[in-house]
């Protein structure tokens, strides 16, 4: 009986040691607490460099949230620098860095990328394309309007969305009539 109790205690001790060891090897991937964008970027860079790159999306969202608290046109440059650093560090490919930047800070819609003609490729999935554009417009509202105070840029993106909707409706109707 005593032997059994001893074995159980030993097992418990071993489990605790293993758990503590694993905690020590996992980096603390918490979100940044800073309210200043520059400091927040430094925090995030440090955390990403210490093995938390799998949480990149969440950190990018944290940075946007911090920037929304202090919106200004220079924020675009800070995000661009951060994404180029991420690309240089190998956390993101060049293409991913571009996508992250343009989705939030450029008038153009990344969801309109495609290599085939509109009749054969875009029209059959027009509703999905418009839905993706609508989501992207939401991100542009955040990046252009709420983070960078680029009102004109955002309204141009909104107008572009409406123009694409109109032109695709007409073009796809014309494509369908020609079949």
């Amino acid at each position, binding site marked *: 009986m005593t032997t059994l109790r001893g074995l159980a205690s030993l097992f418990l001790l071993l489990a605790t040691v293993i758990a503590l060891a694993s905690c020590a090897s996992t980096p603390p991937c918490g979100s940044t607490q800073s309210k200043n964008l520059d400091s927040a970027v430094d925090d995030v860079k440090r955390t990403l460099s210490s093995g938390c790159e799998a949480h990149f999306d969440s950190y990018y969202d944290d940075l946007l949230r911090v920037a929304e608290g202090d919106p200004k046109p220079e924020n675009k440059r800070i995000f661009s620098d951060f994404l180029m650093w991420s690309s240089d560090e190998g956390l993101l490919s060049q293409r991913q860095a571009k996508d992250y930047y343009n989705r939030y800070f450029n008038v*153009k819609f990344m969801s309109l990328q495609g290599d085939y003609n*509109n009749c054969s490729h875009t029209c059959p999935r027009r509703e999905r394309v418009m839905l993706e554009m609508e989501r992207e417009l939401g991100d542009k509202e955040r990046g252009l309007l709420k983070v960078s105070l680029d009102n004109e840029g955002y309204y141009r993106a909104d107008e572009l969305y409406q123009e694409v909707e109109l032109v695709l409706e*007409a073009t796809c109707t*014309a494509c369908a009539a020609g079949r």
Partner: protein
Amino acid sequence: MNVINGHKGTLPAQFSTTGPAASLAWIIGIVAFACIAMANSAIANTSAPTIRLFPTTVVEDLRQTSSVAKEMETGLQEVIGRLDQQQELYEQSKCEGAENDPGCQRLSRQLGATYLEMLGIMEERLPDMEHTVNNTRLSLEKRLRSELGNKMTSWTLQETLLGGNPQPSAAATAPSMRGKSGMRLSERFRQYYQLVASSSSQSDQSLAVLASDIYLDMEETSTLIARTREEIARATLIEQLNQSFGTITPEMMEVVGGVKSILFGDEASRVQIAGPPPGNIEQAYRSPLEN
């Protein structure tokens, strides 16, 4: 069979907002929109167009549509003027509520006869209108399919719409879309025509939106004209029966008023939409990551 009904908002079926006159109002409204927008887009981009959305055939079809619209407008203007006078006389004679009075019944019949005349003009002019609208629609359909559908990807289409200038200032010259301008139908078409006739000075950006807008207009108009032509026969029959039984209502003037406001302009129908808030005036930052 309809009976005399002097209460506002209770239109007999033949004069209701779903009748042929109302349909005509819809048609006219739809074929004509966006001209103020086009006037804005006349502030041309200097870059040479690389897409051909408005070749001579399309321009000629638009000119023809403008001409037919003018004829229809002229024909209706006279009869609508007469309806106005008869309506005035009906009101001055205090016929509302006194529909059984023989004098008022005579006036009602005259109103009905003029209304029948209006239906007749519509019946006579609509086939021409239908023909020219369809020609324009088919020409544009072919160009849109070829130039925007088969020769472009979604990305190049986006770049065309941005006019090679993704900077926000492009918004100032972009045409806005759809809406009554409150001007004469023929004047709207004349502007359509003038705009596309000088399309060499227009940016591809404006032209793609303009062509799409006109095409979708024509598509909807074709359907409405066909439906209206079907409806006219029914409405004419009902009005002929009403003439026999002496039942007419002045509420039809409301419908005629709707046609007038679209044909000849209506200041009150202009809708003002607030512009965007002013953007910051600082030099825009351009990232090396931008496409």
